[in-house]
């Protein structure tokens, strides 16, 4: 089976890193995976996204997908831009701290989670990206929190290892967040 994901947001929100953690997790689960970024003249504060294609049959995945199974939108601009790209019956997972809780399309599923506010409460607003991976793991059921923890350990470089416990906390906070609070 093939599933594809997109993580999108402002430059600086850790969009590419979150994607790299997810891709590493799939690799640890022995899946074939391809990660690629939007690549242009990007800058801090501009929009950025990466796509992850996970596949457990084919050895080589196609890229530049017309439709996406799961999109994580960390800001309003990404929500607006990529809403039409969600596959029918797919999922739009939005950061409700920065994204208005509107559901313009009736043929997809929406999950709103205030990941930026939660990260702020945790003590580091930069954790919003990893929090959203926790939400994604819960919704998609395609990757476990324990594999994502291992992937975090792989991706976080040695000189930043002091941040690993906080990242793991953020991941679990995202996974355990009661979605019924904002998705009645």
């Amino acid at each position, binding site marked *: 089976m093939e599933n594809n994901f997109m993580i999108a947001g402002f430059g600086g929100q850790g969009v590419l890193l979150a994607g790299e953690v997810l891709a590493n997790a799939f690799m640890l689960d022995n899946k074939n995976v391809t990660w690629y970024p939007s690549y242009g003249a990007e800058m801090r504060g501009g929009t950025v996204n990466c796509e992850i294609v996970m596949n457990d049959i084919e050895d080589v995945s196609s*890229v*530049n997908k017309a439709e996406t199974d799961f999109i994580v939108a960390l800001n309003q601009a990404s929500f607006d831009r990529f809403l039409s790209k969600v596959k029918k019956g797919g999922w739009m997972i939005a950061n409700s701290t920065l994204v208005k809780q509107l559901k313009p399309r009736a043929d997809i599923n929406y999950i709103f989670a205030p990941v930026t506010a939660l990260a702020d409460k945790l003590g580091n607003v930069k954790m919003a990206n990893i929090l959203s991976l926790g939400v994604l793991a819960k919704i998609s059921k395609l990757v476990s929190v324990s594999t994502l923890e291992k992937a975090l350990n792989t991706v976080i470089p040695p000189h930043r290892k002091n941040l690993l416990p906080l990242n793991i906390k953020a991941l679990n906070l995202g996974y355990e967040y009661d979605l019924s609070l904002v998705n009645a």
Partner: protein
Amino acid sequence: MTECLIETGKKVLTKGNYAIANAAILAGCECYFGYPITPQSEIGEFMSGKMQELKRAYVSAESELAAINMVIGACSTGAKAMTSSSSCAVALMQEALSYAASDELPIVLVSVMRGGPGLGNIYPSQGDYNQATIGGGDGDYKIIVLAPSTVQECVDLTYKAFYLAHKYKNPTIMLADGLLGQMMEPIEYKEYPYPEIDNSDWALTGAKNRPAKVIRSYAPSADTQCEFLNRLHAKYKLIEENETEWEEINTEDADIILVSFGSPARNAKSAMKECRKLGIKVGLLRPITLFPFPSKRIAELADTAKMFISVEINMGQMIRDVKLAVNGKVPVKLLNKPVGNPPSVEEIVSRIKKESEVL
């Protein structure tokens, strides 16, 4: 830090550019000379740290022109040396490529294509198919060109680039695109699988206690130049006979054969499989070497296939080689994106459906 790992026999998630750099080091590259340009700057960045760590040579050159001429200098001593660059900067290196071909030097150039012509942009492109396979230097020369399609192939073909360059004493280009350079996939570094080539008969290593050797791009008489060119082209013929490489799937009974290299070949492969599910007989031929191009095989397939479609990220460059091989036997069509990410699977499938209706 995935980019700093050089561990063999273990899966690591790695970017194409880092994979190429790591593989070059494992292939025994002793000298890297380069000048940064997007979308391949990670290669030079990685080399700047790793080569020094390994006590090998790294020079951040003052220009692309300087970089490639430094590679010529290093290679003339028999060293494994390389540079990496992109499109408009590879354009600056064309004169040196012609000289290196004429001097029969094993230089390795990694060209990660971006949008052109001119300064263009930094989006993925295959606009330098012609630049690599035909080239802009003077005279009758050929460059060996290898085209990876996955990050694992970025490793495997970098090994091969060093091997072929030294085996045939010929400049060799690794032709990737911006998408592949920035893409991450799980890969495995194996040990360099090729034998080391003896270069003691030509490498300039100091003439103490032996007669001097000369590497020179100059033939003072018409006769010597004729002799030289004939010998050079006998070598190219040998390369064509021995080293042509391609991947071929479902071509035996195919009505339509997609021809595609690099990252678009991935989508062509998926589209081919989709079409097979719909009962449309589609095959794929993916050239891995662009020179030598699998012309002979395409010519054979032109006897059974009813149409070829060349899938590229440019305005149609490889299609010329496909047409030459098909030689008018059946139609050869183009499915292209001028620049950016490759045509999507959906686009390729819908085009195939349209073409198959009128076959």
